[in-house]
């Protein structure tokens, strides 16, 4: 089991009724764990919780299926969304690169892409798009 704590931001796109617009995604603080099986260490299940801390703060979570291609590099698909103050649900994919600092500690960098078509946070029947880059510390538990 590995723990993660990091920060993230990126680009956020959507159509509020005036055409597709892009802006910087809200800055977020995230944390979570990755659970790897002893029998198949290439497969893992990841859980993340995050808080978007700009404008009205929102709380969200993410669950991932991770496939580790190498010891320090993995790809994953996820379901993600926010639960408060408005709901938002969708899915996406991403990858994780780890720069190790010792046996149990490392720095992770994660680019990801998500499309979120469901929930009360999108104006109308539009899809919200996140292109995020997160980074932080990873440590063995």
């Amino acid at each position: 089991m590995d723990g993660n704590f990091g920060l993230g931001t990126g680009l956020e796109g959507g159509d509020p009724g005036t055409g597709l617009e892009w802006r910087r995604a809200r800055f977020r603080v995230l944390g979570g764990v990755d659970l790897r099986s002893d029998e198949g260490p290439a497969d893992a299940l990841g859980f993340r919780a995050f808080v978007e801390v700009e404008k009205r703060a929102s709380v969200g979570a993410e669950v991932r299926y991770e496939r580790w291609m190498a010891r320090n590099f993995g790809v994953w698909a996820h379901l993600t969304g926010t639960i408060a103050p408005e709901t938002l649900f969708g899915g996406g994919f991403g990858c994780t690169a780890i720069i190790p600092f010792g046996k149990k500690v490392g720095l992770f960098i994660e680019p990801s892409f998500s499309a979120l078509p469901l929930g009360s946070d999108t104006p109308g029947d539009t899809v919200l798009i996140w292109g995020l880059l997160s980074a932080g510390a990873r440590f063995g538990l």
Partner: protein
Amino acid sequence: MKRWALLLVVFATPWSSPLGCGGDGCLRNSDCAADEVCSAGSCAPETPAPAAGGGEANEAGETSVPGAGTTTSGSGGTAQAGSAGSSNAGTAGSESSAGQASMSEGGAAGAVTDPIDEGGAGFGGALELGGAGIGGAL
């Protein structure tokens, strides 16, 4: 180590405007205040609930106006075009000023022949004109 620390700072630090989250625009409802929604790229108040007493005016095809029926001038009888039931309906108490009820929706209304009755109906006077779409004199 320094290089990676710098990389982290660069990507983790929020970029400044105009790409930033600041400004009046919105992409998500949660960009707006709790009583607002994101509409056409800007925050707008949520759709108001139908006002009590504005029912018949709604039938005339207009959005109800909160506070419909409140007297503003006492002139009564004069319904604003298409917004029957709003504002000036009033008590219509004065015979001399009861005047006409003009409407763009619900048909052309003629002159109110009995302003006293109109006044007696209170806010309902002009509302009924607009709601029923009665064109002629009452």
